[in-house]
């Protein structure tokens, strides 16, 4: 690792000021620390979000949305987001217990790994990503592999999830990394169904419009029969080629519909 300063502010205000002076947020470090070890980053200064109580916790707002503060760990979401079972279940299967002790929702969404779990939940639920500056709809937030609408120095402070009637997240685990090889989040709202897919596309998390239309008309796994994902923009690696991933999208979407609760 290149040498850097590490600051540990205890309020969001202090963190925002520290960021303005130049620095990179450190949340759970479960992505950033391996990146630093590989010398793929040289931040000069890290601003830890770990000691900021106002950036932690799960609550419900007046609109019934589940609101998760940016530095809330996966483990806390698994234990406390019980009012949104598909979300709690997703958090409970990220990585392993130690990763869930440290890793946070804000870090996951800021990083926007093309195979990360939370982006599928946020996009699939139509969540709102709140920062120290503004609120961003999930549909505008995810902008491709590792790319988001966040500006330099912007901090994810909270994520607000509308709670669907039923939902499920089905993750086909890549056993070496424990990330999804392909995973699908399906959420049925009164006004329609959203389907978000992670792990599959070279452009990161995306919505599957044809599946959404089919499931909005009829919420049954068989409604997806005959729908084929175009393999063109799928990720290909040693774990699976384009056609395999395209096929998995359909399989996992059907499983999600069958398990939606």
């Amino acid at each position: 690792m290149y040498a850097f300063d590490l600051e540990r502010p205890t309020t969001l205000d202090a963190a925002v000021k520290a960021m303005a002076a130049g620095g990179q947020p450190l949340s759970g470090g479960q992505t950033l620390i391996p990146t630093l070890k590989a010398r793929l980053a040289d931040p000069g200064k890290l601003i830890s979000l770990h000691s900021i109580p106002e950036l932690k916790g799960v609550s419900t707002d007046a609109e019934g949305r589940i609101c998760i503060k940016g530095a809330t760990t996966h483990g806390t979401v698994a234990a406390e987001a019980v009012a949104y079972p598909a979300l709690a279940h997703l958090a409970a299967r990220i990585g392993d217990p130690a990763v869930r002790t440290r890793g946070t929702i804000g870090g996951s969404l800021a990083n926007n790994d093309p195979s990360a779990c939370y982006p599928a939940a946020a996009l699939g639920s139509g969540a709102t990503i709140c920062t120290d500056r503004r609120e961003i709809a999930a549909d505008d937030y995810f902008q491709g592999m590792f790319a988001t609408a966040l500006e330099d120095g912007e901090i994810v402070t909270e994520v607000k999830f509308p709670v669907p009637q039923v939902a499920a997240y089905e993750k086909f685990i890549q056993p070496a990394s424990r990330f999804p090889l392909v995973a699908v989040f399906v959420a049925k709202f009164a006004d329609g169904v959203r389907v978000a897919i992670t792990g599959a596309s070279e452009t990161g998390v995306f919505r599957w419009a044809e599946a959404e239309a089919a499931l909005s008309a009829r919420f049954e796994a068989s409604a997806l029969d005959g729908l084929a994902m175009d393999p063109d923009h799928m990720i290909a690696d040693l774990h699976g080629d384009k056609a395999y991933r395209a096929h998995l999208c359909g399989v996992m979407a059907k499983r999600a519909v069958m398990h939606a609760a």
Partner: protein
Amino acid sequence: MLRLMASMRFREDFHVRVSMTVNGRNVSGEVEGRTLLVEFLREGLHLTGTHVGCDTSQCGACTVHVDGMQVKACSMFAAEADGAQVATIEGVAANDGTLSAIQQAFQDHHGLQCGFCTPGMVMAAASLLKANPKPTEHEVREHLEGNICRCTGYHNIVKAIMAASGQEMPALAAE
């Protein structure tokens, strides 16, 4: 209070002062921002029971508890443990050397061969049994997802943890 890290190379211009409790003992020292908790434990405190297997967050050999929660000490900065209570494998047995129930079960059930992964396995098992004193075999296996063992094939580790929880171990599939 001990002044630690004297043996560690660190850059004065990036140093941070940290204090924490390790296995019930107050310690403090100076580290760099980039000093990992596992480096502080091993090189600073000479607590070398916490192993580094991969250094890439995959293997769990470096598992310790921070404020009662399981973490990979290679994936957390020492400065982030400032003020925390840290527990390592060195604090698991009684002062007179009597093994804990989990450690004894690992010995009784041959839950180790080379022993490299064992400190992490024991710490992971302790955190599981604290939250879930009577886990199912499946829950034990799921909990160990982040702990890799190159030797045992896991069966005897699972057996040991089941035994430590006071449960009979049913015959295992691959036996």
